[in-house]
């Protein structure tokens, strides 16, 4: 059949290129924004575009990067995990206590990640996936409960940690690269593989896109939900260890802005709050955007309060830009014009 193999390969290549363009079209706004702010900061702040600053930019956001990748799995499945901040603090104390019990660093790391996955999957995941409780309620409850636990367990005191493992993660180099940057790359590669090359990856999109259709196609929504919250819990554990490395102590202070920042990154990356869309590639760009914005603004002489205001405004603008690019804005404007009448109209065709 293949009379002209060269021709077949070129069309296959053209098709692959077309697919890549189509599948990454929703990333255009965030890439554009990223390029714009990089250009602005490079032009206005001499120190910004230097190797040492870019390394700081990345290594100071490793925890957010990892948490945001876990959050992507949760959000594509149609939920949100608000408990991440409390879990990070709790798992940091767990890690420190495991080291105190004279466990080798690597074993403590593995146990902490498994513990995070178990808490995420068995507490959040089972309550949401199996008992069908609202994810907002469940993750808010576990946020509150684990904030309590972590303070009881640590007597609200930080635990100093001196371990080769955490020092290596924060400051070490591997293959001539900062270990924490390597962790970011590895996390992204694994997540991309799961997302695009496994049945589980497809399940997450199916469950988030249409839970009824997924159930009728024999996909277990409960199992998928447990798995995505386990991923989010495991990511929280990894973030906890990274943070310990940076400060050489396990802090019981809960940073509740962490899950909110992660949610912002996932949305910036083209996900919908309703689930079924988005992906870790977009999320990574979202984290880069937020990280660059924070880094650049703090290099400029803007007061930290103004930095918050600017970040908030730009976030809204970025998400609006996302909607313009899928034509969602036209739809919402048309909706405003037509009033509530269109909300009631049935639409049997599309």
């Amino acid at each position, binding site marked *: 059949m293949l009379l002209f193999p060269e021709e077949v390969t070129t069309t296959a290549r053209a*098709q692959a290129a*077309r*697919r890549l363009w*189509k*599948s990454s079209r929703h990333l255009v706004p965030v890439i554009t924004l990223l390029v714009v702010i990089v250009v602005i900061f490079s032009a206005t702040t001499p120190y910004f575009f230097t190797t040492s600053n870019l390394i700081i930019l990345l290594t100071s956001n490793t925890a957010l990067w990892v948490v945001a990748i876990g959050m992507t799995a949760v959000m594509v499945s149609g939920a949100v995990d608000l408990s991440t901040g409390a879990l990070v603090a709790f798992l940091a104390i767990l890690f420190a206590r495991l080291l105190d019990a004279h466990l080798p660093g690597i074993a403590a790391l593995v146990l902490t990640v498994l513990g995070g996955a178990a808490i995420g999957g068995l507490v959040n995941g089972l309550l949401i996936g199996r008992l069908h409780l609202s994810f907002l309620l469940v993750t808010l409850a576990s946020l509150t409960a684990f904030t309590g636990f972590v303070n009881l367990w640590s007597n609200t005191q930080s635990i100093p940690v001196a371990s080769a493992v955490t020092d290596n993660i924060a400051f070490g180099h591997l293959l001539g690269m900062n270990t924490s940057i390597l962790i970011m790359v590895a996390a992204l590669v694994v997540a991309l593989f*799961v997302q695009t*090359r*496994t*049945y*589980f990856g*497809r*399940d997450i*999109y*199916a469950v988030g*896109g*249409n839970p*009824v*259709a*997924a*159930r*009728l*196609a*024999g*996909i*277990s929504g409960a*199992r998928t939900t447990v*798995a995505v919250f386990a991923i989010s819990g495991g990511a929280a554990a990894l973030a906890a260890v990274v943070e310990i490395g940076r400060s050489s102590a396990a802090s019981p202070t809960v940073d509740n802005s962490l899950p909110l920042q992660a949610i912002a990154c996932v949305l910036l990356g083209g996900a919908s709050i309703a689930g*079924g*869309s988005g992906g870790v590639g977009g999320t990574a760009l979202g984290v880069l955007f937020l990280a660059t914005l924070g880094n650049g603004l703090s290099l400029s002489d803007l007061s930290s309060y103004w930095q918050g205001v600017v970040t908030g405004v730009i976030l809204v603008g970025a998400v609006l830009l996302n909607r313009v690019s899928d034509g969602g804005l036209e739809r919402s404007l048309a909706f405003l014009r037509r*009033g*509530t*009448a269109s909300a*009631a*109209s*049935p*639409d*049997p*065709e*599309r």
Partner: protein
Amino acid sequence: MTAAASADGGPALLRMRDLAKRFGGVRALRGAHLTIPSAGVVHGLIGENGSGKSTLLGILSGQLTPDSGEIVLDGQGVALSSPTRALGHGIAMVSQEMANAPHLTVAENVLMGRRLIRSRWGINWGQSRERAAAVLDRLGVNLDVDLLVRDLRPDQRQMVEIARALSMDTRILILDEPTSSLDNHEAAALFEVMHTLKRQGVSVVFVSHRLDELFAISESITVLRDGQTVAEGPLAQFTPDSVIAAMAGPRSAAASPVHAGWSARAERPAALVVEELSSPRALNRVSLSLRPGEILGLAGQLGSGRSELLECIFGSRAVSSGTITMNGEPHRPSTPRSAIRAGLAFVPPDRKGQGLVVSGSIRSNLMSVATHGKHRLATPATRAEDKVIAEMVARMRIRLHDVEDPVSTLSGGNQQKVAIGKWLASGPQVIMLDEPTRGVDVAAKAEVHALLRGAAAQGAALLISSSELSELLGLCDRIVVMVQGRVVDEADTSTNPNEETLIRRMTMTPKVT
């Protein structure tokens, strides 16, 4: 009561003329008329499912805007561009799905909107309650206005909705299949209320599938078929037979589908046997059996239990008693997963809501069932999948640009082919379909039918529920008629039954309540 006003242009209360409305490729209305001769009449609207009734009522109540046509109220052209406008003209609708707030009281529901009485100190609850009670009195209904609506029976909730419509100075009240959720006794009470409304000068547009009801209460009727008004006028001009004939239309007798080798297959053991299956509020001791290669049709009105029967067999609806046997083995589906494992397939009626993940790619939708047994961390074999997908796309003639595009980019007919194809890819023994060609254009419909016949010819047993009788007559070997959760009739299509006999069986109210 000269409803013949529709013909000569007399002063009718309401006149809807030459209405047309398309949804994508589907022409829901093309030249529909509806005339209400005067105030204080009950006007019946009847037609098969899909004939355009809901669209026509949607336009009259301001929820839909027609593509063309005119609406004349009291001799003046009006634009009913929103439900608020329609209400302003005194037109209110009580829909099939009751739209009330279950956690509010009867009084709050009746006066929903901005019509609770307010004084300087906020809402005056005493006066508001009195006003709500007065409206219910006007209907001759005795109901405590302080009860929560969730504690009411369905017929009482319906009264609350009617009372709400009346409290807005309604002149034309639309009741869309109000009796479908009522028993005979409750329906009689509703008719009392309709008589009361008539005396008070309110006109009622009454939609029902039950001919006996229509003949008991209407003064004039409109019959719709395929989006057109095919008959209208005073009820005296009609007999039940002439209404049925108008609904069914002069369609050519569908080609008999008796395919070759059918009698040989009759010897084979049944693929699916359902015995005395019951489900709360849905099914009442339903029995049927299905052989490999056979296509069995389920006919019945909405709420007759034909959809619910499929859900019970597929494990997505609770069964209270009865047995299901597949290929001689007992089948007790607890979830769709277990039903799929047993070799069942189910194409649900709502393509976007239940059948497909429309934001997902054509590839992932087509492969979703065939791969449901795989280990979740396994990697899909892209080459093998490509081959299966290419075969499916060719066999089903799915018109697409790229299998990685989201399903939402396809036309309705091609989406439906994906919704069916994802099941065929898994090689099921029994395929159940609910409304297999809803919202699909004529050409794609023929392709879907050919596909289903092909699946049967390859040995699958098909169970098809449809509200389109011509579809069932053209496709099925046998047709089972259901009314109110029971099987009331079975017809072999080789004996050439016609639409009229089926409609007659479906529109009879069973004696038992």
